[in-house]
């Protein structure tokens, strides 16, 4: 019961309090790049969530049952990148087959999940903080929920921004960056929950 409570608390903490984009500043590239259409942002959130959860689930046993016993724990990063790249390729192939329109609208940002630091960040954080498998998965789930939530909210705001009259100098990306910083400040308000 205690473990379950800790598990849920960890998910909430990783999703909201230590939000991956707005407090830890991982995965900004796709956040800015895809966060201008609600539908593609939702799909990006789902794709990143799939890659993060699968990568964490594969890399944890890979590290603890293969790399550490063999005495080559220093290979963790390169092994994680192999796993992540493979997963992203699979997501791309599946999406091209079943959701070609979405595949088009995500464009280059889909293969770029490979280099999304949110994914590698979760995997190496799990290794660096010596989390057990349950907590590692809580980290993965919380981080993906946080990423999907934030990119979705951001896309909703940006869609409305496009329809409103912003000063000419702020049109497009500049006002989007201002919005991102305001959102980061709003999420700062959640920091008190943990304490």
């Amino acid at each position, binding site marked *: 019961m205690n473990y379950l409570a800790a598990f849920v608390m960890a998910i909430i903490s990783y999703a909201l309090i230590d939000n991956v984009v707005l407090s830890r500043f991982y995965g900004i590239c796709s956040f800015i790049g895809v966060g201008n259409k609600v539908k593609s942002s939702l799909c990006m959130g789902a794709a990143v969530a799939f890659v993060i959860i699968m990568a964490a689930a594969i890399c944890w046993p*890979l590290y603890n049952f*293969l*790399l550490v016993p*063999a*005495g*080559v724990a220093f*290979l963790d990063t*390169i*092994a994680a990148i*192999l*796993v992540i*790249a*493979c997963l992203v*390729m*699979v997501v791309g*192939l*599946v999406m*091209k*087959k079943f959701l*070609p329109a979405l595949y088009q609208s995500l*464009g*280059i940002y889909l293969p770029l999940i490979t280099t999304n630091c949110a994914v590698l960040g979760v995997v190496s954080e799990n290794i660096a903080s010596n989390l057990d498998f349950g907590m590692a998965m809580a980290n993965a789930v919380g981080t993906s929920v946080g990423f999907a939530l934030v990119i979705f909210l951001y896309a909703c705001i940006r869609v409305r921004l496009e329809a409103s009259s912003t000063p000419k100098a702020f049109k497009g990306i500049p006002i989007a960056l201002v919005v991102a910083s305001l959102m980061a400040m709003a999420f700062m308000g959640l920091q008190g929950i943990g304490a």
Partner: protein
Amino acid sequence: MTVLYSVLILAGLGLFFGIALVLFGVLFHVQEDERIKEVEKMLPNYNCGACGYAGCHQMAENLVSGKEPLVSKCKPGKKDKNYDPIIAYLSSHPDPDGTVHVPK
């Protein structure tokens, strides 16, 4: 020993994921217009993105479908090496229903 294990483990992982990807590639194979491949070969294949598309493949797709009317959007392309062969190829290879999309 460490070197041997590192090499073995990474090679094993690479092989495993490679085979997995080949299987997925066969399983989720998408039939594409053959002309896209041909046009892509005639583009410079720098994947620089100067045309505004994600890469040469996407540019080729849009040229073949006629959504992109300007082959000169490809900035590193040369007129005699890239533009002219693509225009010649697309004017001699119409869509299955007979429509011809010739870019400029």
